[in-house]
């Protein structure tokens, strides 16, 4: 098997995506996601064949044929190959990165300041991201899937691109380094800043004005502001929502339980599509909670061909259009 040469914005850029004895499970995902972004943008990404069996092949979600959806997502379009002068290295193994011959390299570490084991779950715990979703008295809820690895991979990809761009612009490549925990804390900046600046209480159990609400056939994400309250009351057929106590965000937060008792009662016997249609007329930007199958079948996502057919089956494309067409279509020589 040979690695297909990349076509796209990063055409000509070669990247070695390598793990080693010093790699971690979370780091493997981060390295692979960074390589995925590079590959989708047109770089040629190699995964050396001598790195041993890839444990990601056994990681969920698993498909009906026994293969891993995660592995398919992360490795499509990549292949084996050997390093050549001028290649970039992406790795979470400090020894491999230290041994690389020049500064075309990015190291993904679990943390910057202390060496201790981390997982997606513990990074979320240590970054404050686990104190955001959930119910008081219950274990907090984690973000789903491989978010910490993906976020770290995205940051590492940007470190690589910044280094490469510096050299393309006439400077020198700069060795990049990122830490998963730092990337996670960076995501949580608004929450941290609010607390540091003493602005407001946060965390699980805080008064969030917009909450997922059940309707007859699913769930709705309602959104409304002060000026929307008359239309919200109309949509809910609930005059009580016009009361003074619900007129401001502060008032609504003080009376959240009562407000959502009214909203839930109003939506209980109504279908999501009916609610959304009326919400559009009333300029309320509600959304339906959709499963991945529903998202893939949604007219907007269909129109923009978010799911593309790859050699191994359907796959989300890179989430942007490049001069009006997908990068994948460009790579394939077709039209979006």
């Amino acid at each position, binding site marked *: 098997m040979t690695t297909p040469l990349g076509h796209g914005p990063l055409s000509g850029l070669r990247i070695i995506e390598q793990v080693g004895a010093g790699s971690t499970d979370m780091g493997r995902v981060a390295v692979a996601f960074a390589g995925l972004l590079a590959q989708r943008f047109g770089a040629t990404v190699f995964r050396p064949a001598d790195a041993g069996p890839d444990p990601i092949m056994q990681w969920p979600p698993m498909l009906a044929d026994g293969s891993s959806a995660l592995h398919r997502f992360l490795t499509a379009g990549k292949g084996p190959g050997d390093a050549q002068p001028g290649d970039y290295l992406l790795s979470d193994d400090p020894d491999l990165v230290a041994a690389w011959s020049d500064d075309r390299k990015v190291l993904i570490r679990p943390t910057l300041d202390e060496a201790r084991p981390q997982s997606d779950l513990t990074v979320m715990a240590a970054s404050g991201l686990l104190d955001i979703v959930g119910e008081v008295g219950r274990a907090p809820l984690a973000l789903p899937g491989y978010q910490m690895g993906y976020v770290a991979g995205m940051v590492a990809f940007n470190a690589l691109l910044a280094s490469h761009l510096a050299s393309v612009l006439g400077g020198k490549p700069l060795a990049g380094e990122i830490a998963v925990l730092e990337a996670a804390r960076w995501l949580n900046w608004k929450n941290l800043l609010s607390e540091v600046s003493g602005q407001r209480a946060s965390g699980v159990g805080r008064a969030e004005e917009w909450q997922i609400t059940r309707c007859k056939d699913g769930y709705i994400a309602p959104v409304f502001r002060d000026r929307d309250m008359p239309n919200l009351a109309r949509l809910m057929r609930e005059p009580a929502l016009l009361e003074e106590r619900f007129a401001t965000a502060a008032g609504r937060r003080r009376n959240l339980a009562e407000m959502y008792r009214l909203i839930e009662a109003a939506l209980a016997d109504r279908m999501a599509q009916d609610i959304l249609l009326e919400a559009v007329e009333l300029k309320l930007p509600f959304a339906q909670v*959709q499963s991945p199958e529903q998202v893939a079948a949604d007219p907007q996502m269909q129109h923009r061909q978010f799911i593309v057919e790859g050699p191994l089956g359907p796959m989300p494309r890179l989430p942007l259009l490049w001069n009006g067409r997908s990068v994948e279509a460009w790579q394939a020589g077709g039209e979006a």
Partner: protein
Amino acid sequence: MTLQALAGIRVLDLGIVTAGAATSGVLADLGAEVIKIEGPTYIDPFRDWQGTGDGDWWEQSPPYRATNRNKKSACLDLKSPRGRDLFLQLVGLSDVVVENFRVGVLDKLGIGFETLRQANPRIVLASLSSQGATGPGAGNVSFGSTLEASSGLAHLTRYPGGKPQITGRALNYPDQIVSMFAAGAVMAALVERQRTGQGVHIDLAQRELSSFFVGEAFIAALDGALPEDYPVGPPAMLQALSRGEDGQWIAVTIPASASAAAEHLIGALTGQALAAFIGGRPAAEGARALRRAGAAAEVVVAARDYADPHGPAPGNALALDDAGHQVKGQPIRLGGRDAGTAAAVAPLGRDNRYVASGLLGLNDAQYDALLAEGIFATRPRTTE
């Protein structure tokens, strides 16, 4: 200080609130010259969030300050023909424009991509929107919560059998990931431009990006194999959240490599044994013991813990600006150094003269006349 990798790149930042403004913020951290451009009748709505200090209200917002570090500020009326002409001249001197207005606003202002390209064929335009610039939902407005709902993220975030959950205003996860991703897309476009000499229009849909971050779930779902109980991270011998005797939650992941030592410590590799072990001691003590056994174990910290000077350091998540405010940091390190102290947010219109004289070549009298006409401004007109 910035990381200097993008030195020589000029970005015109029409971004507002988080998505667009934070994208330009990342580019500024990496060394680009970013000129934030607001209009006297439409300033960044983030300026009106949580402001508490004395002085002009539009200069007080901590989240605005945090997002717009390391930038210059110009206040130019793009709704006026003269302001539009000046903006297009600026485009001719720049490399990138970033915007996240509602789809169609740029065209209404007469500065859509084709117009920008006429002004500068090498310009890169990054347009960030809810659903993308095309399709039946292109004009839809979204918020972080509705993006989580409509992307599949909320569906995968729930207690067993419970209702979907969102991160809400405290985090607005989709709004955070988009700025780093969009900054990467802009850099990819600049790399390509060096090769082709041509600019590009990047049409980035936040909903698609949120879905892409659970891309493996889409592959599984379309195969009819989406698990009811969606995983969090790679598999482990045991992974759980449990409470110490002090009521504090800790997160524990025991990998296969630590299973023997962890089993010896807690008695058995079961959730019940872990809960009994952790419940019998303070959470921090339990986490330390589990780490000594080779497990990943961390106390679930709250944002308020970061406000404690004795608590965990935020690292590069937050940085100090040169006025002493805490602002958003930058997790990328290049060449062995981080982005360091940020330049404090520029007051509205502080760099008008730099733009007018330094870049556009106007003399002082011409600038003063434009200021008198309201084409340039240093305060929002809506507050008069």
